[in-house]
């Protein structure tokens, strides 16, 4: 039983990364009907921007110029990196997607792949191939709860990501911009004719998705403090699977599917030999898709869509 709960805790942390990145995919997909394959690399860029901001703040703090406690640095790092990374997202949208908005979908899809490669190699040129080690920021404390080992970082990661997901949900449901997004997800062609500025909404969607990816990147850096320029590729693919599994246009779906993927991966490795982990895990997901081809909360195209 202890073993089960230990894995549950592990899975919660792992799943929250998938969920946060899946949200970015899902939003762009439901509003603009395109797959932003560069999103995994925006996650990587977010982690590196977080690394840069955190390192700068730590140095600043150590020099005595601005003595900040670790949690304060973390909060500032998250906010600043969200801000900076959202610009990366907006630039990607402006340069890569807007000119191709009326082009065939396949062109937009390869744009994402190409931008992803550009971000990876750009980082490689900028910082070199060396791995960087994310500064710890807060001291890791391990709690032993009846044999289950939980660190303060794990709790924090899960809480912060749940908090951002809730914030996103409220934004989409309660604000005018959120309403515009929902309307665009409902009908991509007619709604812009009714006076909703498609460019603003597209930019906003990318900004929010990228900001969330930055949060995921920083939390990832805290949990797994070794960053490399290619860290976003496989992670991006898996989060993309989660986004589709959640169903088009569903924040709830993407979140749930992200956590579910984390759970499946961890628990498959718990029960079966770990060599077979991905094989079994993704067979299960394939099976789910066979029975629910539109994902958990998705509905066949042209039916009403939720965001």
């Amino acid at each position, binding site marked *: 039983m202890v073993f089960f709960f230990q894995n549950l805790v592990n899975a919660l942390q792992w799943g929250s990364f998938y969920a946060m990145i899946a949200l970015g995919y899902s939003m762009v997909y439901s509003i603009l009907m395109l797959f932003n394959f560069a999103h995994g690399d925006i996650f990587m860029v977010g982690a590196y921007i977080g690394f840069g901001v955190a390192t700068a703040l730590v140095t600043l703090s150590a020099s005595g110029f601005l003595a900040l406690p670790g949690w304060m640095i973390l909060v500032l790092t998250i906010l600043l990196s969200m801000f900076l990374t959202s610009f990366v997202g907006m630039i990607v949208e402006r340069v890569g997607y807007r000119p191709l908005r009326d082009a065939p979908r396949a062109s937009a899809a390869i744009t994402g792949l190409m931008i992803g490669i550009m971000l990876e190699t750009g980082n490689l040129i900028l910082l070199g191939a060396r*791995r960087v080690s994310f500064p710890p920021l807060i001291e890791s404390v391990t709690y032993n709860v009846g044999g289950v080992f939980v660190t303060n970082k*794990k709790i924090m990661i899960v809480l912060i990501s749940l908090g951002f997901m809730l914030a996103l949900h409220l934004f989409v449901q309660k604000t005018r911009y959120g309403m515009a997004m929902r309307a665009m997800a409902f009908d991509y062609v007619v709604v812009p004719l009714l006076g909703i500025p498609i460019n603003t909404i597209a930019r906003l969607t990318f900004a929010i998705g990228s900001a969330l990816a930055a949060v995921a990147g920083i939390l990832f850096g805290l949990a797994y*403090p070794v960053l490399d320029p290619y860290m976003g590729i496989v992670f991006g693919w898996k989060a993309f699977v989660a986004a589709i599994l959640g169903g088009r246009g569903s924040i709830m779906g993407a979140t749930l599917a992200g956590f579910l993927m984390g759970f499946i991966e961890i628990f498959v490795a718990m029960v079966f030999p770990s060599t077979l982990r991905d094989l079994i895990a993704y067979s299960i997901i394939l099976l789910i898709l066979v029975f629910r081809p539109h994902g958990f909360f998705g509905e066949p195209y042209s039916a009403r869509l939720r965001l």
Partner: protein
Amino acid sequence: MRKGLVFVAPLLIALGIIGLMASPCALAKAEVIKIGINAPMTGDIPKVGEGSKYAARMWLNDIEANGGLEVGGVKHPVELVIEDNESKAESAVKVNTKMITEDEVLVIVGPQSSKQAVPAGGVANNYETPMISPWSTNPDTTKDRPFVFRGCFLDPFQGPVVANFITNEFGYTKAAVLYDVASDYPKGLAEFFKQAWEKLHGKGSVVAYESFTTKDADFSSQLSKIIRSGAEVLFTPQYYNEVALIVQQAKELGWQNPIVGSDSWGSAETVELCGEACYGLFFSTHYAAAGATGKTKAFIERYKEKYGYVPDDVAALTWDSLGIVETAIQKCGKITGKVEKDRNCIRDAMAKVEQYDGITGQMTFTEEGDPIKCAVIVKISDQGEYEFYKSVCP
């Protein structure tokens, strides 16, 4: 812009003609000896590539200071062709093919990891070009390949070394293994360790044998399983980037017993990424920088002065491998400029090197092209230095 081109173009042509005229003159003097370095400059383990490159450059400086490599009384200029294999098997194969067919190198030094060295060795052997891998410990690299050599000990030796060390040092009987199933080196070494451990402690004494795949960052479910299995020690033959993650996550999950590693831990970057979590841990390797003497010490000091950090085992082994190549070329006696003939001559000479006294120790070569040499157990000190702990000889 266009005007500039009008001026530049004839200039370039003129330069080309001069170059064409000049090069046969140079050839007539002494053939250039081209040596290929196939190393991971980018990808998963760029520090390994950096060490290889720096050691090779240092070696080249020595040769150039001498006015070239003296073979049979003629001083030949040496040229290094350094190519990046991105730490990928397919790129290493491509790099070898390019260096052999386009650059026409006489010898290849590298690739470093077995993941690249095993397939790339096949290419070198098929094209009959001598290759020496400084760091690849997997037996398949040189097996049935007369043109392929190596500068380090083998995993069938390293596995038992680690198993014996743990048994003698801690007296444990139950061990766990965590390794990357998608990479030749960890996979091979994990198997050799398991065999050796079960030989010592009986079947079933490896209580957890867990794996993951390259690029994984979360090992929590494997580590939870290992902790539950009641293992007393964890052996993880991984590269430096994964070592940091595995050790830190194990501690966070409540693991308090020793974690032991292999020569892939020896990079200068391991401690930098892993930090204090790695202090006090042991691993087996090729040489220990702290407390080195003689020419090993001289090498370390020169390297440190030049590049600012203590060289890791890859740099030392690359240095030794180039030394072996140098000896072989000199033994060959004559560089004719006919690439195929020279390659065969160097291979034969390399196969005849019986003993070599390198900075990573005495080596005696077997018929397979593998050296027999001692392994070193290193302890990561509380200052994060690699301290010599014990020497284990075959």
